[in-house]
């Protein structure tokens, strides 16, 4: 087997894997503040992508569309928090799992009926011509995914470390009750995390759409792998999701090359079940201390 082909497959797979990492990062944001994640996150990716496409079709320029799409994603995130998560958290129940699935289902059905069931192309000014870097061909489009992912994750990490609000965010995730005693409203912090998580999902949609096209089912495969990445890496390591996301993407692209495209999903799922058996808290996760 030609090593350069392997390298080629691995690199483009890894770049795709960054999208999984980005969605998984969205899970981590909400998990940090509330120990909950949005099981309908895939639908946020998809609906935001459709909305962004509509903005483009209305004549909004590409670069102006991006903030619009992110804002819309953030808004959807807030809807999920208000309708699906807050009540369950107040009651200390796990009802949010079911409720976020349900809200996702509603978004899915709405998108299907508003935008139709067909896949549509997503225009982008970034060229899809390959360029030659270190012996492998990558397209600017693929590189733009990497740039986008690292830009938003970097921005959010900077926000968490450099602003007081961001530190408050970390405080809530470390000890919710103690944070409240400092005057930090946990409810608002959870809202903020869902808003950010929604924006992250929207960006994932905008980045991936030019490559995969936009359709109601565009996120169903993506989201499964994002789940795998989040669980394998653990729900509290940003570095972990990037590493696991890229490895999974590479592995997957090799699997579909050698085993057939239908098996594309398999490595992620197998990796997930293995990781659960060996490291239940994730490879980069922290063990929790039980108290009585």
């Amino acid at each position, binding site marked *: 087997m030609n090593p350069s082909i392997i390298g080629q497959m691995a690199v483009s797979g890894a770049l795709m894997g960054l999208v999984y990492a980005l969605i998984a990062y969205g899970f981590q944001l909400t998990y940090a503040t509330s120990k909950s994640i949005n099981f309908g996150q895939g639908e946020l990716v998809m609906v935001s992508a459709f909305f962004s496409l509509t903005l483009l079709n209305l004549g909004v320029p590409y670069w102006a569309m991006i903030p619009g799409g992110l804002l819309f994603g953030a808004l959807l995130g807030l809807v999920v928090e208000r309708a699906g998560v807050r009540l369950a958290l107040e009651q200390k129940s796990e009802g949010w799992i079911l409720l976020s699935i349900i809200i996702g289902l509603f978004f899915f059905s709405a998108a299907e009926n508003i935008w139709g069931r067909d896949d549509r192309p997503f225009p982008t000014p970034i060229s899809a011509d390959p360029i030659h870097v270190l012996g492998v061909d990558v397209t600017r489009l693929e590189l733009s995914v990497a740039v986008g992912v690292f830009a938003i994750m970097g921005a959010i990490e900077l926000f968490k470390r450099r602003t007081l609000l961001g530190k408050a965010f970390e405080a809530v995730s470390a000890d919710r009750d103690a944070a*409240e005693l400092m*005057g930090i409203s946990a409810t608002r912090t959870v809202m903020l995390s869902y808003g950010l998580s929604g924006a992250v999902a929207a960006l994932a949609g905008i980045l991936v759409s030019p490559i995969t096209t936009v359709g109601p089912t565009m996120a169903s495969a993506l989201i499964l792998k994002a789940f795998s990445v989040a669980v394998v890496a653990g729900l509290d390591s940003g570095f972990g999701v990037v590493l696991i996301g890229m490895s999974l993407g590479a592995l997957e692209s090799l699997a579909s090359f050698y085993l057939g495209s239908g098996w594309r999903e398999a490595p992620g799922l197998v990796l997930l079940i293995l990781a659960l058996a060996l490291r239940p808290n994730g490879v980069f996760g922290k063990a929790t201390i039980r108290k009585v």
Partner: protein
Amino acid sequence: MLQVEDLHAGYGASEVLTGTTLTVKQGTLVALIGANGAGKTTTMRAISGGLKPSRGKVVLDGQEVQGLDASRIARLGLAHAPEGRKVFGPLSVEDNLMLGAYGRLPRFFGFKAKAQADLDRVYELFPKLRERTGQAAGTLSGGEQQMLAIGRALMARPKVMLLDEPSMGLAPVIVQEVFRTIRRLKEEGITLLLVEQFAKSALEVADYAYVMERGRIAVEGTPAELSRNERVIAAYLG
């Protein structure tokens, strides 16, 4: 400065507080002592909003605050250094301190400059914390974490500060240091409500004290009065 009237609160069906009434005047140090399970910590939590009282009033500086969210009460000027210290483990010492002043600092940028004066004051009080500014709070020793918890509460420039079992789990030497700190806070005119299991030490620093038994105040008075009270001597002072 802080008044608590007929406070009832509990967890689920079981009521722990059955009508607690106490007053903390401005600039005084009030101690709350009593057996384990008498409801001291529950009183603290019901005052600071971690637990919603089912009945009764909490008045902070003339304003009724019972039933408000803990974060709201904190921003109104009540700082609570909780039992078990509860520092933010993964965050640095300095971040922990700055979060103590969260209510009055700008949310995005320039907060450090604004907090600097208070930071210096806390570091002056606890020189050990200055040495460990950048270290994660979770890696500090128990005594250092307690200093940090007190420092964090101070950063808020609170109208009233609640200190819950600051000596808990600490070696005797460190406990003495904690009490020296408390005395110093008192000299600076900070209004304090202190819960302590070491009744004698608590009475030595307090201006006034309440003894709790089974969810309500059983005896109250100045330390001198309590030290003469037969019942208190038998039960708490040996």
